[in-house]
Each structure stands twice: as C-alpha cells, then as structure tokens.
C-alpha cells in the first residue's frame, strides 16, 4: 500500500493530505460537469419548447421529455451547489487540521526549548558524568581497525529501526531546534534572556549560531577545515527536458560528479537554468579532496549565523560551476538539491548572486535556513528520515512541506543505516508528487514548467568539484 502525501505551509495554515485534496478536486470537477449538463439541457429546453413541439405536431413522448427536462434542472443545480459545498467543507477541514497542527507545534517547541534550557543549566553535572564515557568511546573508535569500524557500522545498520522511527525523527527535529536554548543554558544564561536573544525574538542566538560555534571549535582541533576548490566540466549533451517531479529527481547527480547544470534556451529573453546538486559524498570529519563533505554540510547550516565562517566548499564549487556555465544575475535559476545539495542550494539563494526562482529539496536539512523573498521552496521529506529532521523545524511559513512515509510499515528496500534518506526512495516519492491534487504543489510544478517555457530539449552538463591544497 502507498501512503498519503501530507502537504503543509505555502503561506497558509492549511494541512492537507492527498486524500482530502483529491476529494475536493473531484467534487469541484463534478460541480463543473453538472453545471455544464444543466446549462445545455436548459438551452435545449428553451430551443425545443412546447410551442415548437405543438407546431410540428410532435408525439406526446417528445412533450413529456421536454417537461421532465424542465423539472430536473433545479435538481442538477442543487447537485452542483451541494458538491461545491462539500469541497468547501473539505478545505475548511484542512484549515482546521492545519491550525491544530500549528498550535501543537508551537506548544511542543516551547516545551522543548524550556526543557533544553534546563538540561543546559545542568550541563556541568551531565558533562562530569558523561565525559569519561565519551573519551573512552572516542578513543576506542580512533584505535579501531578498518574491519572493526566496518563491523560497528554493520551493527548500526542491522539495528537501524529506531533511527528510522518517525517518533525518534520528530524528537530529533525538536531537539535540533532547541540546540541554542541548550547552549544558552549551559552558558548560564537565564531563561528570560535566552528567549529574547533566540530565533523568535532578536535572532542573535539560534540554530545556525550553535552550528557555527560547534564548527569553529572543531576547526580549532583540525577537523572540518575549509580549503579552496576547483571545478571541471564534463562534455555537454542535449537531452529531453525534465518536465515532471519524477524526471527532475532522476537528474540529481550521484556518481563522481556532484553538480548538473541544464540550460533552457529562451528565444525572447535570457536563458533559464536548472541546477541539480547531489548529497554528501564523504562523511568524515577530516577534510580530504571531496567538497561535498561534512565540513561543507555544517558550513551550509552555519551560514545563516552572524558569525563569519566563510562559505562552504560545496557552495563555492557550485558558484564556480554556475559562473563558468555562463549563468548571470539575469538568468532565472531553479535549484534541485538532495540532502546537503538542498542546504547549499537554499543557502546560495540567500546570497542573491543569482536570480533564483525556485528550490526543490529532496531530504534536505533546511528547516532553519532562511528562505529569501521571491523564492518558492518545496521540501519533500520522508517521515522516517532523520536527515531533514537534523535541519530543525521549518520556520518559514511559505515553505511548502510535503511529508510521506517511505516504507509505510514495509521492509525498507534501500540498504545502509538510513534507508529512508536514500535518493532512490526520494525518486519513488517524487513520482507520487506528480499526481498530487494539492494546489500548492501544482502551482510549484507550474512555476518549474513556466521556466521550461515549452522547451522539449535542454543542454545538460555535469560538473566535478574537488578540494585543492591552500
């Protein structure tokens, strides 16, 4: 069984499951069809009237048919109005659903923030109790052979169930969004001061500040360091234009190349570009040759902070590739990013170097990243995927958040410790997005189609980025 898609955000409090949206759309289609039948029968009734039938000496059955048609017009009118009323009731149900959902989210976030602050105040005791264990675990990992590390990861994979439990995923989402309150508590800041400095008030403290602080500390120990990057283009080729969510998801690069740029030739204006970004290639804390690594992951999440961290390697690689591809501030750009690629894409949209119109995220940890005005943003997330949850709660009310179960109670198809985060699973879910009846999803799809402007072919080019020695 394929589970429902749940759509929220898009500037409204409405939360609609695909079932509600589909029923409302069907009822409105029915109302239009019934009104059409009624209008045409009314015209027939007017054209072939009793006077005409009497004049041509028509049989009684024709007169009877004429009377019955006349009688059924009010029933048809009421059927159309009734269907419209039901569709409106479903919309109102979606609004009520959304308001209840938003209220519970505010309550949960508030409770989580206070709890995190309290735990932060107790941090010296927690630190004292947990430091020996942490030191022992870190030491064991450092001393472990490749085989032992592989065995440890295999153990995590074989016990991956809790990591993909939607309840645990929601817990992580709230915990991440409360990281700044925890930090303020650990620093001894009173709750009242923390609340004023936090995201909801002055925005001096916040998720990005916490990530920037952690990244800065890691850099002092030689981890997560940044380097210059270089990009190299592969030969361009002409391919079919990707005109659906499914086709777009298929274009996300996953091999050696991390970036794909597709140019749509526009006869009467600047060319449009679809820019695809893959996910994290290297999960190590130590920086190597791969710019789509953990240093870039945290760099992209910290970029919203007021602390100066410098741009992530993957973001600099993206900008270098886009400029080399000839993309200027006049060219409309749509970003499609998977995982880290989504965070880098949204982060780049904030720089306002390029004319970004839309961002489509597949499992991106982007909840706490600012969505700039004028950019439409759709975030597709699996309920069992911990990676988008690691980006915190979506603070931007205009973000269209689409959630779906990747497995729906069945055994995960993808291997690895986080099967719900697999790109293959997001490609499957993108297929379902194409048949969504939700107006917000349809409008987003129309925006992307508008950028294609009816083009059937595009020029596609893959780009490989690598880190180089400073």
């Amino acid at each position, binding site marked *: 069984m394929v589970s429902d898609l749940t759509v929220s955000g898009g500037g409204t409090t409405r939360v609609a499951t695909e079932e509600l949206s*589909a029923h409302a759309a*069907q009822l409105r289609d*029915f109302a239009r069809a019934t009104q059409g039948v009624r209008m045409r*029968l009314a015209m027939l009734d007017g054209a072939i009237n009793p006077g005409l039938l009497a004049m041509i000496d028509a049989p009684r059955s024709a007169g009877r048919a*004429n009377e019955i048609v006349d009688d059924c017009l009010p029933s048809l009118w009421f059927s159309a109005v009734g269907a419209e009323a039901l569709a409106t*009731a479903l919309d*109102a149900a979606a609004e009520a*659903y959304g308001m209840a959902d938003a209220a519970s989210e505010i309550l949960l976030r508030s409770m989580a923030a206070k709890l995190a602050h309290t735990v932060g105040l107790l941090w010296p005791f927690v630190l004292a109790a947990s430091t020996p264990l942490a030191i022992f675990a870190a030491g064991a990992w450092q001393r472990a052979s490749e085989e032992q590390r592989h065995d440890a990861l295999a153990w995590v994979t074989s016990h991956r169930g809790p990591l993909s439990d939607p309840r645990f995923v929601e817990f992580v989402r709230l915990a991440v969004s409360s990281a700044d309150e925890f930090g303020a508590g650990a620093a001894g800041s009173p709750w009242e001061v923390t609340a004023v400095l936090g995201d909801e008030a002055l925005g001096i403290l916040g998720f990005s500040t916490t990530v920037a602080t952690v990244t800065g500390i890691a850099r002092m120990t030689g981890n997560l360091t940044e380097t210059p990057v270089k990009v190299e283009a592969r030969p361009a080729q002409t391919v079919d234009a990707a005109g659906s969510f499914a086709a777009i998801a298929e274009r996300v690069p996953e091999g050696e190349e991390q970036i794909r740029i597709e140019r749509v030739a526009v006869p009467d204006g600047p060319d449009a570009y679809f820019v695809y970004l893959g996910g994290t290639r290297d999960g190590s804390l130590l920086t190597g040759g791969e710019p789509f690594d953990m240093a870039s992951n945290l760099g992209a999440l910290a970029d919203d902070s007021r602390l100066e961290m410098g741009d992530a390697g993957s973001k600099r690689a993206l900008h270098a590739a886009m400029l080399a591809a000839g993309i200027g501030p006049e060219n409309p750009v749509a970003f499609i990013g998977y995982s880290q690629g989504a965070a880098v894409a949204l982060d780049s949209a904030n720089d306002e170097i390029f004319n970004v119109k839309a961002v489509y995220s597949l499992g991106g940890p982007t909840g706490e990243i600012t969505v700039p005005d004028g950019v439409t943003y759709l975030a597709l997330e699996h309920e069992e995927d911990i990676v988008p949850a690691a980006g915190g709660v979506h603070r931007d009310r205009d973000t269209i958040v689409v959630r779906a179960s990747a497995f729906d109670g069945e055994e995960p198809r993808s291997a690895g410790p986080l099967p719900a985060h697999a790109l293959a699973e997001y490609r499957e879910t993108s297929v379902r997005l194409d048949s969504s009846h939700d107006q917000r999803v349809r409008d987003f799809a129309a925006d992307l189609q508008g950028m294609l402007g009816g083009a059937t072919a595009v020029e596609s080019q893959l780009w490989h980025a690598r880190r180089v020695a400073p």
Partner: protein
Amino acid sequence: MDQILELQRNAIAHELHRLEEAIASLPALAHGEWLGPAHTAYLAWLAKVHGDAGAVCDRLRIALGAARQSVETAAGC
C-alpha cells in the same frame, strides 16, 4: 419534424451520458462513505460550526438521484 425530435433525443442521451460519467467520478465521500478517522474528527468539528457535511452529502445524493432518474426517463421518452 423528425430532425427536431432526433436532435432532442440525441442531446438528452448525450447529457445523460455526461451526467453518468460525472457521477462515476465522484469520490466515495459523496456516495455516503466517510474519510479516515483523522479527517472525520475535523469534519465532525465542522458540523458544529458550518452545519453537517453529512447532511449536505445526503441532500446531494437525493438531488442527484432525482436528476439522474429524470434525465434517464426523458432519454427514454
């Protein structure tokens, strides 16, 4: 005369076919089946505020039944 009667008969039969198609495309909700429990709770809340969606369903079914039967009869005349 035959042409006018033929026109009337064809037009009614055609509209009957369209109406049947429209009825077949209606969601289960309009046929009296309810959505899942989560939605039922919100529809119940709506019933208090905006009137009973179930009653709208019932009236819609009655009106549809009458319209369908009328057009069927007219097509058979």
